[in-house]
């Protein structure tokens, strides 16, 4: 428990100049070594303690993520008394998220609330008077954790996770029963059988990974298409949004703070505009890129901003677009209200959620705040339509699901290599345990219960 390496973002969430990712534990330095290449310090082992080193963080494909300052505080001279690493990267969501995901992938575990402090205390770095506070943090964390657990448990996510766990459990019970009761006429565990069940489990988990919604927004931005018939004010809206919400991202080679025109930052939500390249030159996207391409773009969109001219009656073209996008998450921007409202907005309200019809005037800069509010709410309510109704929104859950996927994939490889079932069960059990950390279940007793309920065994 005290032996693993923990990681957390040390700075407050939101827009800031820099962000700090902090690691503590034996493997901190090793993890830094795997992702950081210093300008001067080529080898992290040679980095002096408590000195900033300038360099870059690279992902697994060798792609530069960010330009950073890294510092190693070697045990026992650190806050926790263990090896501590801090990575100072650019602020803003993308860079921090990417680095955080990378360190978790390299073997760090997401720290629990108060865990750095707890370690500090247990390693003698914090005095006794503060230890009471540590217990309070732990206790508070439990209460909060319980509340979260209850909420999560009722959710679709836990249903999906349970579904996968049931599949894994059925594989395990079958393997274990055949091992513990070899002479009972239990149907033989075949590799085909295991593979098909394993692949089903993988399928569901991969869908869940795709729904890692918040993370996906943070990483890639909320894919957004702005659409509407000609002359309703698409480009003026875009220009207005861009003027007010220039996104600063560091997600490009060189990692300088470039302004990327395809990206918007709306109240901290990163918006990635899809195929809007020609949008500002010509009003008619559909004409320019073709209907098929537009449909394709719409398919990829998490969010569609549908602009209509509120001052005129809705046209057939408007209705055609509406029917094309009615399956998507849509915010209707009813523009030009400065010129009066003639459009039958109620009819649109019947197609789309009435709350998402924003009356505005780009010309007068009216209603732009409401539009931003609607975008923000869409991003964080998690109700963007995705393939699965279960949504992974928590980085801890995401990282557990990732580990489960890795374990199952390892098991599948092992099956192909002809590794005996006992060893295959090791990875399946690991996968189950990771998922069990989401639902709070433990494996051993469950397997035994499952064996006896599924198989008729006895002397």
């Amino acid at each position: 428990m005290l032996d693993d390496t923990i990681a957390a973002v040390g700075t407050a969430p939101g827009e800031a100049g820099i962000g700090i990712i902090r690691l503590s534990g034996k493997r901190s330095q090793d993890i830094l070594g795997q992702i950081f290449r210093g300008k001067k310090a080529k080898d992290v082992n040679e980095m002096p303690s408590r000195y900033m080193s300038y360099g870059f963080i690279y992902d697994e494909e060798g792609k530069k993520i960010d330009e950073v300052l890294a510092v190693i505080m070697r045990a026992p001279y650190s806050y926790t008394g263990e090896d501590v690493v801090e990575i100072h990267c650019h602020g803003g969501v993308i860079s921090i998220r990417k680095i955080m995901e990378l360190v978790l992938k390299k073997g760090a575990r997401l720290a629990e609330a108060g865990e750095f402090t707890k370690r500090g205390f247990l390693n003698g770095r914090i005095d006794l008077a503060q230890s009471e506070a540590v217990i309070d943090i732990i206790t508070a964390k439990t209460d909060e954790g319980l509340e979260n657990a209850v909420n999560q448990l009722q959710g679709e996510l836990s249903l999906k996770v349970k579904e996968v766990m049931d599949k894994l459990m059925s594989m395990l019970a079958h393997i274990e029963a055949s091992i513990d009761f070899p002479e009972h006429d239990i149907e033989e565990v075949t590799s085909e059988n295991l593979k098909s069940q394993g692949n089903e489990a993988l399928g569901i988990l991969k869908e869940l990974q795709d729904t890692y919604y918040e993370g996906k927004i943070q990483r890639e931005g909320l894919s957004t298409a702005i659409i509407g018939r000609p002359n309703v004010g698409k480009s003026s809206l875009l220009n207005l949004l861009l003027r007010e919400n220039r996104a600063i991202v560091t997600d490009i080679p060189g990692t300088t703070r470039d302004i990327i025109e395809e990206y918007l930052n709306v109240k901290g939500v990163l918006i990635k505009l899809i195929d809007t390249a020609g949008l500002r030159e010509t009003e008619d996207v559909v004409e320019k890129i073709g209907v098929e391409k537009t449909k394709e773009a719409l398919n990829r969109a998490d969010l569609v901003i549908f602009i209509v001219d509120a001052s005129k009656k809705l046209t057939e073209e408007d209705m055609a677009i509406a029917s094309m996008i009615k399956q998507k998450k849509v915010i209707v921007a009813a523009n030009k209200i400065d010129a009066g409202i003639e459009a039958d907005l109620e009819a649109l309200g019947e197609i789309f959620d009435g709350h998402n019809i924003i009356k505005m005037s780009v010309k007068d800069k009216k209603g732009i705040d409401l539009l931003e509010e609607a975008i923000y709410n869409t991003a964080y309510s998690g109700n963007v339509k995705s393939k699965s109704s279960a949504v992974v929104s928590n980085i801890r859950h995401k990282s557990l699901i990732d580990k489960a996927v890795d374990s199952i994939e390892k098991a599948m490889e092992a099956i192909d290599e002809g590794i005996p079932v006992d060893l295959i069960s090791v990875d399946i059990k690991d996968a189950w345990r990771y998922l069990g950390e989401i639902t709070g279940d433990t494996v051993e007793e469950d397997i035994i219960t499952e064996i006896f309920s599924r198989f008729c065994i006895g002397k």
Partner: protein
Amino acid sequence: MGDNMEYYAGEYDVIVIGAGHAGCEAALACSRMGLKTLVTAINLDSIAMMACNPSIGGPAKGNLVREIDALGGEMGINTDHTMIQIRTLNTKKGPAVRAFRAQVDKKRYSERMKWVLENQENLYMKQTEVVDILTEEGKVTGVITNLGARYSCKAAIVATGVYLNGKIVIGDVSYEGGPNGLFPAKGLSESLKKLGFELRRFKTGTPARIDGKSVDFSKMMEQPGDENMKAFSFMTKEINIKQNSCYLTYTNETTHKIIRDNIHRSPLFTGGVEGVGPRYCPSIETKIVNFPDRESHQIFIEPEGINTREMYVQGMSSSLPEDVQIDMLRSIKGLENCEMMRTAYAIDYDCINPQDLKLTLESKHIEGLYFAGQINGSSGYEEAAAQGIMAGINAALKLKGKEPFILDRSEAYIGVLIDDLVTKGTNEPYRMMTSRAEYRLVLRQDNADLRLTQKGYDVGLVTEERYNAFIKKKENIENEIERLKCKSISPVDKVIEYLRKYNSADIKSGVSLYELLKRPEITYASLAEIDEEMPGLSPDEAEEVEILIKYEGYIKKQLTQIEQFKKLENRKLHDDIEYNQIKGLSSEARQKLSEIRPSNIGQASRISGVSPADISVLLVYLEQLRRR
């Protein structure tokens, strides 16, 4: 019992109550460790009696036997001397779950164990029934028998099996009785209650025995022993016996109909059996009720011994009335004319809650009082023997003023068994299964000696002969692994030919034999074809080398997990911690921790109701204590 009936009958260091599989190992451990030991039994002809199945070993159970053997116990050697068939199970399912299972001559098993006990220095044996345990100031001081003999002792080990207030149930007939027609033990339950133990009722059962000459074996499938005969004990050089076969047949629709038509007469369903029975050995009637879709169930006919025609009917455990039992037996293929010699029965008995025990199997509130075997809620000969040897070792160490001997979950199945019982408790007779061991990849039967013989030697139970053999084996294995790492081969003609022969990928440059052996298709034995310097390892040593190299990745991963696990096991919790005073613990954790009093943080974390947050609080509390 009036004082006038009592007489002083002598003094022993340790008295072991009961001479079944637990009692025998306990008594041998104590006496071999130099203590004057008395072992009692209600009937001296029932020493190490196999009251149920005529076999020893199997998955997980076989690992227990090898661990007992590695520590210097008797079960493995006794099995090797009396087996009449041996098989290796799970040969293709992975190195950690390979398991030996021997069919044993029951009578000879019991006789030889008695002979070993009789010949053991410091060990005394008496046929008598202990009815009372004497204590002074919370310490054991002696026992009293039903004939009024009072023996004084410094420690007592209760290994009473299913004898305590045993009740036999066959259909609507029920009577007080021990196993296999023996007397039950009547007095000791009261004594234990008076000492503050909560007694519970568990249930087990055994199938019928039939006359072999009334069985038509030609209608069944013969199950012979393995050609390659293996031994349980690391000390046994070779097994060379003429093996007996078992036979496989099946129940059918007629059998099931007989059972269904008479189910109302089963005490399990009428309430005649009060105890909780094990899930893993359900009676045939339970199987029919719980799995109504199954058209047939396997039945194994197994010999009870060499000098008897009696056969054990595995799969037909039952407490249905005798007439129904005969009908259902005769409905089975091959048993049409069978003669039942002993009727199947269920037995109810008293046992304690093992959560009242420490990891040493000593009572938490009576010093010097140890418990082992079915009295602790376990089931099975191997599980009993494993607890017996551990209770024996710990009683002996205590009297010698030495540190207790505890095996943890990463060191042995014995550790898993005792930790499960003591920490988690059990609601049914507990059977060892490989699924219970989180570190089973390292708890293999092939390496039981490498894991435990040093420890057995250190406590003084392992003989010099066994110890020297272990040291030699260990060195041979280590040297050979080192040699394979250093020896490199290059893609010369002979090697290329070899690789083609085994459908293995070509090598471009030099590769160590160690790396080569990691390939699934390459076996250690086959390396001899390209390596003239192979030392002549014994088959056991060769197996060990092969497993350690081939499965290195998996084993290393498990060893890392074990390292983590040990960190928490090494954080000791003292007996006198007042959990109610610790701020931040949940109320459930306070209650459970106060009751169970775990001896370390790891054990605490396995108690149901103790959350990871509670463990964090305990860690902080320990640190606070240390600094004050």
